[in-house]
Every structure is written in C-alpha cells, then in structure tokens.
C-alpha cells in the first residue's frame, strides 16, 4: 500500500541526489555514444555504404582479434608494447626527476640549459628515430629510447617548473629552522610538488606510448606498432584497425591506472 507520503528530502540529500544523477547521465551518454558509433559502423558496412575491405567493421575486428590470439600470438605483441611503454615511462620519470633536481640545486645550470631544453622539447622526435636505428640497431633498446625521447624533455621542464612554483616562504621557513638546501628540497620542494609530478606522469605515459609505436613502426618485429605496419603492407586492414583499437584500450587502461594511483596518494596524504 502506498498510503505513506514519500519523506521530504533535505536540501543536502537533494544535492547529493542531483550530483549522482548528473554523473549517471554523463556515463550513460558516453556509453550510448560508443554503442551508436559501433552500430553505425557495422550497419554502414553491412549495407555496403562503405567498403569493409578498407574500413573493417566491429564484427570483423572481433573475428580478427580472436584469430590473432589463436594463430599469431596477439597477446605477446600486446605484452611487448606494454613492456616497452612501461619501461620507457619509468626511465623517463627517473631521469627527469634526477635532472630537474639538479637544475633546482643549481640556478646557474638551469639558466645555461634552458634554451637547449626548449629546443629539444619542440623538436619532432619522430625525426630522431632513424638516427636511433643507426646508432642502436633495430630492437627493444631503440624502441625504448624512442619512447623516452618523446616524453623526457617536456617532463624535465614540467618537473622543474613545478619545483620552482613551491612557495619561497616555505623554503625560508626551513632555513629559519636551521635546515640546509638539501632539507629544503626533501622536506618542502619534493613533497610540495607531488600533484605536479602526478599530472605530468599522466601525460607522460601517453607520450611514451606514442614514442614506442613510432619506434615499432621502424625498428621492430614484435609489438602493436609492428602489426600495424605489417598489416598495412599486406593490405590486411582488419589487422591494422584491430591493433589501433587495442592501442585505444591500452591508453585508456594506462590513464585509469595512473588515476587510481593518484587517488591513492592523494588519499594517503589527505590532499
């Protein structure tokens, strides 16, 4: 029996409800857009609006993916690309943290290095890939270096800028308490830059993936970049498109995992 009146919501409950509804709405639209896109793609192929040989189709992508899994060790291609990307990402983090720390310690060094960093950062890194092949041969080493080259200069610049933005008075505080420049770095600058380190990491993992794929185009016999080039050469566009879709999923997973790590760190430090 529905004789009882629904209890009046307080303003707070109403706000929370509206907030949730808003989020559901956004999520539903996102899913709907994705499903519509897949349907339109499939239908236009089936009705021969576009040629499935050139444009593939969701069902062909799924079939191709399963076949690749069975006969062509798709998983190992994915694994290679994942490994190379993560490895160059970690190296980028390590190197840029080291270099930006040095730059922070020595203002003179940072002044000397500034134009070099800016130029290297704006240089299209794909132009360097042929050189890497000549210097390092074809193989994992070249691909990891290619992955690093895309992200590292921007990363150094963002880290260093982040270090500089730390409140100068907080550093003075460390000095008034009898601390050294080293203390200022480890007690104030580094912990104070955590948000910037995280947001830079989020950008860097994507850039590392870009660099790794460029490297794989030119110098690999394994990996998704290789599959894309190989597929285009033998005119197996299903393989190309399947690889691209797998790359989309990988990029999404990277982004999500860094977001989770970011959330954990922020929760730990109650930021």
């Amino acid at each position: 029996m529905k004789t009882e009146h629904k209890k009046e919501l307080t303003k707070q409950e109403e706000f929370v409800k509206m907030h949730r509804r808003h989020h559901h709405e956004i999520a539903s639209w996102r899913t709907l857009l994705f499903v519509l896109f897949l349907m339109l793609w499939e239908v236009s192929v089936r009705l021969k609006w576009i040629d499935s040989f050139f444009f593939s189709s969701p069902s062909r992508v799924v079939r191709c993916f399963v076949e690749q899994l069975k006969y062509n060790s798709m998983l190992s291609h994915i694994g290679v690309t994942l490994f190379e990307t993560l490895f160059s990402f970690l190296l980028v983090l390590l190197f840029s943290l080291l270099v930006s720390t040095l730059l922070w310690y020595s203002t003179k060094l940072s002044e000397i290095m500034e134009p070099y960093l800016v130029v290297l950062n704006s240089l299209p890194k794909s132009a360097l890939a042929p050189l890497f092949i000549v210097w390092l041969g074809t193989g994992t080493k070249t691909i990891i270096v290619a992955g690093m080259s895309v992200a590292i200069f921007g990363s150094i610049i963002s880290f260093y800028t982040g270090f500089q933005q730390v409140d100068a008075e907080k550093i003075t505080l460390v000095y008034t308490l009898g601390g050294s420049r080293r203390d200022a770095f480890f007690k104030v600058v580094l912990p104070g830059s955590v948000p910037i380190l995280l947001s830079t990491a989020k950008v860097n993992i994507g850039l590392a993936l870009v660099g790794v794929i460029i490297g794989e185009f030119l110098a690999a016999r394994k990996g998704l970049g290789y599959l894309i080039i190989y597929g285009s050469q033998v005119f197996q566009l299903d393989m190309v498109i399947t690889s691209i879709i797998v790359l989309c999923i990988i990029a999404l997973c990277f982004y999500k995992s860094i977001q989770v790590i970011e959330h954990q760190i922020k929760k730990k430090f109650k930021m």
Partner: protein
Amino acid sequence: MAYMHNILELKNIGYSYHSLHGETKALKDISFGVREGEFIAIVGPSGCGKSTLLSIIAGLLTPEEGTIIVNNPDGSLHYPKIGYMLQRDHLFEWRTVYRNVTLGLELNHKMTKEHLDVVERLLTDYGLDKFRDKRPSELSGGMKQRAALIRTLALEPQLLLLDEPFSALDYQTRLFVSADICRLIRAAGKTMIIITHDLSEAISLADRIIVLSGRPAVVKNEVSVNLTLADDSPLAARNAPEFQQYFNTLWEDMTHEN
C-alpha cells in the same frame, strides 16, 4: 635586574638592495638595544624595510654597514638562539600536526626524548594534544598559529622574531590570537621582536615600540609603553586610558615625514 640588560645591540645598521637599475637603500643607521625578556614592536610604513631588519637580526642577511653586538648575561659571545615566525603559519599539509611541530627538531637532528618532552608539554599546554594526528587544514586559524609557535619554541630559542605573524587572520581572530600568542611567549620567558603595521596591535602587545621612517628607514622614535590594565582580556590594553595618547603619538610619527 636581568630585564634591563641588553642582550643584543644594533649599531648603525645599514642595508641596500642592488639591481641593474641601481641601488635601493632600505635601512640607514639603525641603532637600538634589545633587553632580555622585553617585547619590542617595530612599526613603520609598508615597504620601509622592517622585514629586512628582522632578517638581519635573524642572521638570514648580513648587514652592509654596522654591527650587532652580542652581550650575554653570562659574558659568553654566542649569538642568541633565534626563533622566527613568518607572516603565514606555513604548516605543511602533507604532514600531521605532530610532524609539523617537530620539523625544527628533525632538521637539527634533535629528535631526542629531552626535546620531544618539551614538544609534548607544549602540545598539552596549548590544547593541541588531541589534534596531533590531524592535518593543518583541519585546525582553526588560532590553532594553526599555536602549532607554528610550538614548532618555533621546540628549538628553545632565546629571542623570538615575529614578522607580521597575524596578518593572514581576520580582524576578530587576530585580536584573540595575537593576545594569546604573546601571553604564551611571555609565559615562556622569551624576548620578542614583532613587526607590525597595526599601531593598536603594537601598543597592546609591546613594552617598547620602535618607529621606522619610510625608505631608507631610520629610527624615528622609540616609545616605552606603560598601560594601566583592567584585566588580561585581549581588549584590556585597547581600553586602557593611556592607549589613545600612545596611538596619537605614533600616528604623528608615522604620518609626518621630514
């Protein structure tokens, strides 16, 4: 009486800032003594070099002219231990309150039982004991200032330098917190130099007020403050019969450039 004893004496201190466009004289011929246990307020127009003077006394800057003479009661020559409080509390959000107040000890490798006991006692005395595991953002403005004071006092300084320490607070909080913090510093038996641009604050807190002129700053006047206090509320000093007289004197000094 120890009170009359000058522990520091500034003699003809001068300081300039240099840039490619030229020299800016900040301080000129500043001389005054600091007596043990005394509260000195330094007032002056904004940008006159008050903070520079404090940085020189703290040893963060070296004066270009003049000297600071150390005159300890026991005849020793070591510079008094300085505690410096900046304009904002600068508690680190990534540390708990407890790890914030022990920062100075940590930096000086003094995390010994003896020193931590001092912190412990201060936390209890200042009512921050229950908040030790909280983050600074969870404290009120007044509690943050108390935490910053504990951080300073943990190193057991003899001379406290306060650079407009309450200017980030709203007016009402400021009245209470400034009276509160100064009461705690007096109770701890420290000597204090406070910079402020608030004349009422200077009169209500200090034993002696040093008035600086505009740039380059020279000592324009020194005023000893003696108030008849009705009680020890934060507003008592401001209600004292002599308050207005002091205010007028200082106002004259501040507004008449010569």
